[in-house]
C-alpha cells in the first residue's frame, strides 16, 4: 500500500502514506535539532549536579554548589538591614530636632519617606498627601492630633479609633439623630459656625440665626471645640480655619451634626518598623515646611 514517491521540489522521498491528499516527506531530522537537544540536555545535567534538583525519598539532591534559596534570601535581607543600620539606628534613637538639623539624614528621610508614604498612606491620604473627604490633608497647618514629628509618629503608631490599646479616640456625637439638638438649633449652629470661618459671610455677623447659634454652640460644642471654636487639641477640629475634613458647606455640616462623625486610622505599630514610622513623621513635617 505504501508507495514512496520522490518530491520534485525538495528531492526527498515521501513516506508513502497519504491522508486526504496530505503526504509526508521522509526527510531526516536536521542535524541542529540533535545538537541542540544534546546541548540543552547537557546544560540540564550540569545544572542538576550543581543545584538542588532531584527528589530522593524524603530528601533531595542538594547540588555541589550548596545553594539554598531560603538561606540565600535570609542572608541578603540580613546584609541589607546591616547596610541600612548605619542610618536607621540614628533615626530610631536621635531627637527629631537633631535629625531635622542633619541635611544628609533628611535626604534619606525624603528618599525613603516618599516610597513609604506611597505604599502605605497614599491609598487614603492621596498621592500628594492632599487628602480627600474624610481623610485629612497632611500638607496643611491644621492637625487634629498635633503636627509635631513626635505627635505624628504617635498617631501613626496607635492610630485613631483603631484596635490599638492606646488608640487616639474621638467622636463627634450625632446631635440630630440622638435628639440632643432639634432641627432649628442645628441650622442655627451651622450658620454660626460658618460665619466663623467666613469673615464676609453673606448673612453678616449678627443676623438672628447666628446669634441663636452662638448660644447653642456655647452649650453643646464648646466643651470639645473650645469657647473660641479653635479646637482644644484632642481630635476636635478648629472650626475657624478653612480646612474641613467632611466639607464646610451647609449640607455637609448638617450631615455631620445630624449623624455624627467617627473617623478611622489604622494602627501601624506591628506593620511598620519604628524607623519607618519616624521617617514618615519627619517626611510629613518636612513636606509641610516646603509647602507654602
Amino acid at each position, binding site marked *: *500500500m*505504501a508507495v514512496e514517491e520522490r*518530491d520534485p*521540489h*525538495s528531492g526527498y522521498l*515521501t*513516506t508513502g*502514506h497519504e*491522508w*486526504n*491528499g*496530505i*503526504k*509526508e*516527506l*521522509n*526527510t*531526516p*531530522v*536536521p542535524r541542529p*535539532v540533535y545538537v*541542540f*537537544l544534546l546541548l*540543552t*540536555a547537557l*546544560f*540540564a545535567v550540569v*545544572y*542538576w549536579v550543581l*543545584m*538542588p*534538583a*532531584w*527528589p530522593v525519598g524524603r530528601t*533531595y*539532591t542538594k547540588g555541589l554548589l550548596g*545553594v*539554598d*534559596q531560603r538561606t540565600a*534570601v535570609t542572608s541578603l535581607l540580613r546584609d*541589607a538591614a546591616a*547596610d*541600612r543600620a548605619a*542610618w536607621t539606628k540614628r533615626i530610631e534613637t536621635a531627637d527629631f530636632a537633631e535629625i531635622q538639623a542633619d541635611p544628609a539624614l533628611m535626604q*534619606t528621610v525624603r*528618599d*525613603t519617606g*516618599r*516610597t*513609604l*508614604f*506611597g*505604599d502605605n498612606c*497614599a491609598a487614603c491620604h492621596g*498621592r500628594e498627601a492632599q487628602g480627600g473627604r474624610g481623610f485629612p490633608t497632611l500638607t496643611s497647618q491644621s492637625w487634629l492630633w498635633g503636627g509635631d514629628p513626635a505627635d505624628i509618629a504617635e498617631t501613626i503608631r496607635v492610630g485613631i479609633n483603631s484596635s490599638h490599646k492606646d488608640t487616639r479616640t474621638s467622636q463627634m456625637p450625632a446631635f440630630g439623630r440622638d435628639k440632643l439638638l432639634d432641627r432649628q438649633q442645628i441650622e442655627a449652629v451651622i450658620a454660626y459656625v460658618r460665619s466663623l470661618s467666613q469673615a464676609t459671610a453673606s448673612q453678616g455677623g449678627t443676623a438672628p440665626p447666628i446669634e441663636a447659634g452662638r448660644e447653642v454652640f456655647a452649650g453643646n460644642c464648646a466643651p470639645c471645640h473650645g469657647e473660641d471654636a479653635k479646637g482644644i487639641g484632642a481630635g476636635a477640629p478648629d472650626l475657624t480655619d478653612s480646612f474641613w475634613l467632611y466639607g464646610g458647606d451647609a449640607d455637609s455640616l448638617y450631615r455631620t451634626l445630624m449623624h455624627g462623625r467617627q473617623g478611622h486610622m489604622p494602627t501601624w505599630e506591628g506593620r511598620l518598623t519604628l524607623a519607618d514610622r519616624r521617617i514618615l513623621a519627619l517626611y510629613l513635617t518636612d513636606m509641610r515646611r516646603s509647602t507654602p
Partner: protein
Amino acid sequence: MISQLSPGERRGALVLSCLVGCAGLAMAILGRDDPLGGQGAVVMAFALACAGTVSHGYFTPAPSPASRAAYYDDPTRAGIVLAMIWAVVAMAVGDWVAWLLVAPDLTFDAGWSSFGRLRPVHTSGVIFGFGGNALIATSFYVVQRTSRARLPDQLSPWFVLIGYNLFCVLAATGYLMGITQSKEYAEPEWYADIWLVIVWVTYLLLYLRTLARRKEPHIYVSNWYFLAFILVVAVLHIVNNLAVPVSWGHAKSYSAFSGVQDAMTEWWYGHNAVAFFLTSGFLGMLYYFMPKRAGRPVFSYRLSIISFWGITFMYMWAGSHHLHYTALPQWVQTLGMTFSLMLLVPSWASATNALLTLNGAWHKVRDDATLRFMMTAAVFYGLTTFEGSFMAIRPVNSLSHYTDWTIGHVHAGALGWVALITFGAFYSIVPQLWGRRAMHSARLVEVHYWLAIAGTVVYVISMWNSGIVQGLMWRTYNDSGTLAYSFVDSLVAMHPYYTLRAIGGFMFLAGTAVGAWNIWKTMQAEAPVAALDLVDAPIHPDLQPAE
C-alpha cells in the same frame, strides 16, 4: 440539524435535555439561597432551548441511508459559528478590561462589571469559548478526513459541542455572579467541573471510536496531537479541580490541596493547559490545514515524531517555573526550569517543520492571506516558545514575574499563534462547509490579517515595555538602600502602555469582527456549488455503517 439524527438519537437528545433540565431544577431548588440557584436557572434555560430545538425537528423524516455515506459536518459548522461568537464577545470583554486599567471608572459602579469578574470572562471566553469550540469543530473535521471514516454516531458529537458550550456559559455567567474557585484558568466551581468531565470523557470516547473505524492504515500526525490534547486535558482538569463543595446547595467548594501543594497542582495544570490545550490541539490544526492549503507534503515525518514526543514528555515537568522564588522547594523549581529549556528544542522543531513545509509554496503565502495567517502563526509559535523558555530561567523570571511581560508573552501566543492558526483553518474550510467556491471577500481576509498582525504587534510590544519598566522599578533601590519607587509610581508609569495595549487589543478585535462578518456573508451567499465533496477523498466504501 435534527433531521440528520436517527429517530433513536432524537429520543436520546430529548431525554438528555430533560435530564440536564432536571439537574438545573435541582440546582435551583437546593441553591435557592445561594448564587448556585442562579446557575440552576441558567442550566434550565439552556436545557429548555435544547429540548425545544429537538422537539421542533422531532418528526422530520428520518435521514436517508445515503446521507450516512458522507462526512458528518453539522457539528463542525455549528462549532465554527459558536467559536466566532465567543471570539467577538470575549475579545470585546478583553478590550473592556484593558480600558479598565486605563480608566478604572469604566465599571460604572456595578459589582458584576468589576475587574475581578470581567477578567475571567475574557480569559475563559477566549481560551475555552473561542479556542475550545475551534478545537472541537476542527478536530471533528480532521479526524473524519484523515481516517476516511464518518463519526460513529450523530448524537455524541452534538452532546460534546453543546455540552461544552453549557460549561462555557456556566463559567461566564458564574463569574459575573461572583462565583469562582480562584484558580487561574480553572475558575469554574465544582458543578461545572463535574459536567465538563462528563462532556470531555464523551469527547475522548468519540474520538477513539472514530479512529477505531479508520480505513487508513496509519494515524495522521494531527490526530496524535488532538488525542494528546483531549486525553491530557481530561487528566489535568480532574486532578486540579478535586474539591469538596460546602454543600449540595452551595456554589462554593474547597480544594483538596492546600498551601504550596495547591499552588503546584494549579500551575502543573495551568502550564499544561497552555501545552495541551493551546499548543497540542492547535498543532493538530496546523499539521492538517497548512500542508493542505499549501499543497505541499509535510517537511519531515521524523521531525514530527521527535517534536510530538518531546513536547508531550517535557511540558509535564515545566509548570513549576510559574513558582520561582516562592515557598515551593528549590529542587522543584530547578526541574521546572531545566525542562523548560530543553522544551525549546522540540517546540522549535515543530515551528521549523511547519515553515519548511511551505518550501515550494512561498508564492502562495504571498498571495493567499489564509495561508499567510497560518505561516505567521507558526512564526509566532516559534517566537513565543523561545520567550517562554527564556522567561523560565530563574534570574530572568525574577525580573519578569508578576509584571506585564507575562501578559505580553501570553498574548503573543494567544493572538499570534492560537488565534491566527484558527482563523487560517476557518478560512480554509468555511467555503467548503457551506458549499461555496471561496470566502465572500478575499479582500476582507486581507484586512483581517493586517488588523490582526498590527494589533498583536502593538499589544505585545507595549506589554514588553510596560513589563520591563515595571520589573525594573520594583527592584530599583536608592542610595539609602530602600526602594526608589512606590507601587503607585509604577502604575503611573504603566499608564501610556495600558492605553497602547487597549488600542492594540481593539485592532485585533476589529479584525475578528471583520472575520465574523465575512464568514457570516459566506454562509449567506446564494447558489451553493454542487459536488464540493470531491474536494475530499470519499469515505471508504467498506466502512459504510450497517444501516
